[in-house]
């Protein structure tokens, strides 16, 4: 009996592995393979898959990359580090992906970066923890294949929040005491570490710093407390908690004389206004990833959101779509440049790392956003490249308030506060 099971099991494993073995044998290039690896149960995952497919469709219609047809292969990391690693390896070795685009969870990213180092595959990634680029800094040779493309390193939110307070003050809204509500998570801690000295310089006091776990939804008592402590601003630093909409709803129904301004990831979503039945009105947020549907900052971005809507029936469901779309085009661009410069193998990851690094602060590439990499392969945070634009919901529309050169609206205070 055990024998029978053992033999059957071995046969099954061998059978499943065999057909793919043949592909491994083929060595000559006949196509370019782009892998997408993200959590497909989340909008942050599906948006990346859709955006990559859109870009690849466009590229194939114009003759592909160096004449090769581009193919997309998809993996689902299920937000699980073990699965993420296995899927990365599958895409990189069995599907022979030339580049992998994707990611979302910082924890999964830490694990998949190991698979990336082992397979030496170019990885144009999402996820915002500073620990990823720190790895590139620590061991450049091993982790150099990794580039952050979707959004700035999370610590930059601190600079944006400081600028947000300055912007409010310039508009005559006094901010001296703030009430922070943040994710109970490492990334929010990193933001706070950078934010504290900045606030000290501005003379702003943190009267309370509340940490909330995933799916926390009891904001009413926090808002009441902020009111009692005479806070001028409730500053959310919320992404993983996933209940930014509940906070906004409870804030709008309690109507405290306190502005809600900070980084509430949920507010970036184009459908957020309808989802909250208009409670989002006057909420000030950071446009993470540097692009908004109603305030595109480049021509390509404007085209992209419309093409996306035409193909899928709705605007990008998560900002990661911009990063993934850019990733395909930046890959095409570096391969073509490598080929033009006579590189022996223009698809070689080692070679392409050098070409990607050419897009630095003084030489950004303008795609849906202006992209430039730091020496540690983070995105350069600046007014000229990508930063988390300070924005506000105004009557169903997302409006950028700051910095001025991309702003398309002025600050509005809620009626119950004026």
């Amino acid at each position, binding site marked *: 009996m*055990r024998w029978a*099971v*053992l033999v059957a*099991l071995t046969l099954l494993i061998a059978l*499943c*592995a065999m057909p793919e*073995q043949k592909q491994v044998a083929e060595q000559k290039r006949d196509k370019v393979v782009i892998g997408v690896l993200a959590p497909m149960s989340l909008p942050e995952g599906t948006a990346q898959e859709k955006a990559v497919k859109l870009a690849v469709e466009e590229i194939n219609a114009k003759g592909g990359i160096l004449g090769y047809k581009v193919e997309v292969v998809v993996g689902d990391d299920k937000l699980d580090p073990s699965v993420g690693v296995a899927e990365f390896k599958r895409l990189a070795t069995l599907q022979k992906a030339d580049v992998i685009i994707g990611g979302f969870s910082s924890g999964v990213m*830490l*694990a998949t970066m190991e698979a990336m180092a082992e397979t030496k595959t170019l990885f144009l990634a999402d996820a915002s923890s500073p620990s990823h680029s720190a790895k590139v800094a620590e061991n450049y040779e091993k982790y150099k294949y990794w580039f952050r493309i979707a959004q700035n390193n999370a610590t930059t939110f601190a600079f944006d929040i400081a600028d947000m307070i300055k912007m409010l003050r310039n508009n005559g809204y006094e901010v001296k005491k703030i009430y922070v509500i943040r994710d109970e*998570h490492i990334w929010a801690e990193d933001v706070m570490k950078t934010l504290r000295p900045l606030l000290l310089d501005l003379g702003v006091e943190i009267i309370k710093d509340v940490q909330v776990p995933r799916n926390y939804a009891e904001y009413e008592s926090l808002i009441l407390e902020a009111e009692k402590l005479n806070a001028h601003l409730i500053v959310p630093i919320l992404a993983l908690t996933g209940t930014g909409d509940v906070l906004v709803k409870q804030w709008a129904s309690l109507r405290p004389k306190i502005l809600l301004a900070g980084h509430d990831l949920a507010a970036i979503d184009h459908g957020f206004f309808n989802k909250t039945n208009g409670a989002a009105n006057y909420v000030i947020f950071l446009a993470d990833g540097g692009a908004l549907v109603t305030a595109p900052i480049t021509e390509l971005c404007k085209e992209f959101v419309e093409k996306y809507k035409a193909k899928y029936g709705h605007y990008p469901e998560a900002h990661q779509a911009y990063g993934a779309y850019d990733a395909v085009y930046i890959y095409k661009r570096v391969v073509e440049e490598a080929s033009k410069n006579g590189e022996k193998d223009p698809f070689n990851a080692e070679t392409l790392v050098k070409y990607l690094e050419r897009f630095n602060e003084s030489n950004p590439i303008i795609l849906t956003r202006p992209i430039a990499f730091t020496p540690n392969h983070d995105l350069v945070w600046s007014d000229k490249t990508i930063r988390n634009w300070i924005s506000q919901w105004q009557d169903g529309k997302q409006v950028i308030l700051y910095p001025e050169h991309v702003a398309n609206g002025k600050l509005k205070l809620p009626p119950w506060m004026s």
Partner: protein
Amino acid sequence: MKAIIPLAFLLAILPMFVPSAYLYLIGLALLFAVLVASWDLMVGYTGQVNLGHTTFVGLGAYTAAILQLPARIGAAFDVHPIVAVILAGVLSAFFGLAIGLLTLRLKGYYFSLVTAILPLVFMQKVFVWRGVFGGEEGFSIPSEKILVATTLEKYYVAAIFAIISLGVIYAILRSKIGLRFKAVRDSEELAEALGIDTTKYKILAFVLSSFFAGVAGAIFVNYRMTVAPDLYDVPLMLLIILSAVIGGLGTLWGPFLMGIIVYLAKNWWLTAFRFGIVNEEIILYAILIAVAILMPRGVYNEVKEKLRRFAKS
């Protein structure tokens, strides 16, 4: 027991046929199978339904991770990864002892309910002391502090561990101790009448089972190089229970092999079936419900029975 030798042989030559991406998964499946077998040691052989096996998996995982990266607690000592892995098992066993002493003297459902909430208590610890345990994203261990580096070596570590664990558990169950476990399961009153200290043997089984879970958790960490709270979590627990029950409780081989099959099915074979509102997990759970209702004694036992009848006729 004889089947362990061909199993070892098969596992030894597998890398010749299977590409490394799948080898990586098969190694994970073997580690997972040890979790299932060690759960069966407690549940299938003493009849006490432990719903908190992942407590010890996670405990072992975090213990090893911190011993291998003591900078996380601000300490500076050097522990060889093998020592870290064994210490992880010992600590898990120790916790198993404490919790066993507290709960196994109670009869009925309380052991199940308490063990069901245990992993959650331990998981909260990860979030509350984020600085040390890394919170939700966990933390990664640099490759120079890890047991072995390449996928092939990792696979062999997992395979050797699986073979040894299976052998040791089998030996325990074949011994006098194993017979007493079964006596406790079949009739606690009778066992007590025979002068067996039932609580003692339940605790012993729990400690042994926790030890293997802890070591497996520690090897998991060395295998994938990151530790994260998913090792404590309910989905892992459920997968363990499902594999063991479908494999056939109290048969050791059934749960072990079913552990490999279920893990590979979930993360490999069934991933192609993903359309609309159906994914591999839905298919898996549906199959498992059907099997549980139609073959409540487990696939292993039912098929064995059928084959025996077939051979007779």
